[in-house]
């Protein structure tokens, strides 16, 4: 699985999460930050977490990933970080 594929897949999941805010046209790149750029709250990460499990299976466990991070890292989290995490778990 390539980075590009995963990025595309994450992008469409994020659009699903964001669509409820009417934010379906935002540009999402590796550098996009969940907190600052997308304004995702912890509650949105829950939704994203279940989409990840649905799509990749239970070994792509956002909960476990986040549990290892301190709060500052969580705040600084980018889409690219998540892409790398997914690739590492799927590989």
């Amino acid at each position, binding site marked *: 699985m390539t980075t590009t594929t995963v990025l595309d897949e994450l992008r469409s999941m994020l659009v699903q999460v964001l669509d409820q805010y009417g934010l379906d046209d935002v540009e999402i790149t590796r550098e996009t930050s969940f907190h600052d750029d997308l304004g995702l709250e912890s509650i949105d990460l829950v939704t994203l977490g279940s989409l990840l499990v649905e799509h990749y299976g239970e070994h792509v466990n956002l*909960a476990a990933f986040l549990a290892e991070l301190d709060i500052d890292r969580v705040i600084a989290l980018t889409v690219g970080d998540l892409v790398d995490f997914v690739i590492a778990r799927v590989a």
Partner: protein
Amino acid sequence: MTGVVLREFGVTGRLGVVNPTPERLQRAEKVARKGRPWRGRDDIWFSPEPLRGKVVFLFPGLEADFAPRVEDLVDDPLDLGTDTLGRHAAAVLTANRVVDEALRRTGIRPDAVAGHSVGEWSAMVSGGLFDAAELQELLWRTDLDALRVPGVEFAVLGCPLDKVELPWPNVVVSHENSANQTVVCGPADEIAELAEHYRRKAVICQVLPFRSGFHTPMLEPYLEQFPIPKLPLHPARIPVWSATTARPFPSDEPAVRDLCRRHLLEPVRFATLLRTLHDDGFRTFVQAGPGTLSSLVSDTLRDRDHLAVAANSPHRSGIEQLRRVATALWVEGGDPDFSALDPAPAPRGALAEFRAVLAEAEAAVAAVLAAQHKIEVSTAAMPHLLDHCFAHQRPGWPDESDLRPVMPATTMIAHLVEAAGRAAPGRVVTDLRDVRFHRWLVAAPGHRVTLSAQDGRAKLGDYADATVTAAHRHPPAPRPWDLPHDERDPVLPAHRLYDERWLFHGPGYRGLTRTVAIGERSIRGRITVPGAPGALLDNVGQLLGHWLVELHPERWIAFPKSIDHLRWHAPEPPIGSTVDCTIRITEVTEDTVRADAQVIRDGEVVIAITGWTDHRFDGGADGGAVHRFPETSTLSRPTADGWWLAVDRWSLASREFYLHKYCGAAERAEYDRCPPTQRRDWLATRVAVKDAVRGALWRDGAPPLFPAEVRVRQHGDRFTAEGLHGLALPPLEVTVLRSTAAAVAWNACAKVVQQQGRDIA
């Protein structure tokens, strides 16, 4: 805040932008165009229609991150320390109270209040059940930390209550926070196991940094020392809802005290509370304090119409965040007091600068929104277009599209001017140049058309466009022209132009009250400005029409095609005022007529027009008659032996014109499905058949009959006709002969051969 009531821009709803930047305005424009509610992201709020419904203040309780920003909302410093659980709770209550009071100063008042966990005490204060000072004093005297249940922890789970399984004997649910968040509480070792378990199941799980055992039965043994349920009670001023019962507090004192106690021992049912509030008509949920309560609201009510907004945020000052709440509520139809949010008295220069920025931002929003918006072109949105229908039909005709209501070229001009004016706030549109009318803008069926004004070019969809000049004032007026030397009295008085349908206009566009004089190359008339948009200029065109009717009766039907230059020297005269109009014809060809004109009020030129060009339609006298009185006129001619002969010499534009006089919606759809090469034949045949049918019926004494009332059907080589929309006709069979013998014309002959079962040929 910059707010725009979008109705003025052809979009409904309200748009609010805090601290508008060019990027933000661009985004706001996109948001407004999508027409879907947008609530707060990037400091933009948009609502196509107000939420209405009641407002509830929700007071936060203890959260892991406590970062109140209330310093600018109060005069004196506050104690907001959180080093002990007791101090933390007291600080939350203080911050909540400050935000509550600031909201009310801004004219934002709740219809009810509620709270999350200890925030419920804030709600009780805000609603009047507790006295703020009495609660404060009690908290000072109480050692809340003594209430900690030893060894007990909270964990937040990222899943709904019904997905929570608790196979640990001492763990219980303490908070049903939102649709996707539940808090559990229990002994530290069991909570640690639970966290491991849920993370393995990919459920986000976070252990909270404070320990208490609140909202669980584990607190029971410690409750005796806890004085809050014993605090003096007062009558509520506004309804206080309990998160324990998800209902309003009871009114009798013992029941209130009992509920205070249960509140400490039973789970916080916040999600249920939110749903119940929504069911009860609450739509606006204001988080009246620091924290993230509003995201619990969004999570729980995500499929329902609502506004969740936080009145305090760690990211900006208290006033700045209140400005966002006020904007959000204003967008939903509220009326907050923005003056209360004005910056504190600032040096004069700075204040003036702030106002200038605000004014500039407002102009920028207006410009962005005016740059492009859609207008609804339909007879419902523009009833005046019913006074501008190209095809007469029987009174009460049910299909509006057969009437062909068309937006006059001059009404298109009015829209172009309006768009250009909005794009240039503070200036007036003085000139339109190279005005082009590309296509008929038909209003039935209704549709939306993009109106834009950018870079000096105004466009109404692909129907019309023009180059625009806007200036701070109107240019000086030229002298009215000298009177032409060859004038005479007109043959037709102005009213007969309408009565005899030389002009098809209804009351909204009828303004020619008198034609004063006519000459070989000129005409002068008097116009009483009618009410429809663009009607004044339309009457200039009508006066030109009068000149054609009298001087070129063989080809008098004409419609505007382009105008080289329109210049306004003063604001347009108001509806009902009287103006004079002089037209000088500059060129007449087979296909066009060109003219210059002056619109004069009280001896001053108000509008100067150069190069007004009309397209002239062919069709001869028959065409003119059908245009005026289709119910008694025919395009075909009867021959001696009972045939009706239609000869198509029409241009494409004219054919289109007669198509709408002759054919109803279903037949026009057939025409459209015809390959272009067969359309001439198709239409000439329909014309001949309809005229043959009407001719035969009229010979038998039938009343006037519109061509569209006769529906022609083709069955191979056979043609039949029947009545439409209530017209009863016997089944009629018609014979048709067609030829292309003449190179320039298409002939179709038709004859009614059978009626009521008998041959009549």
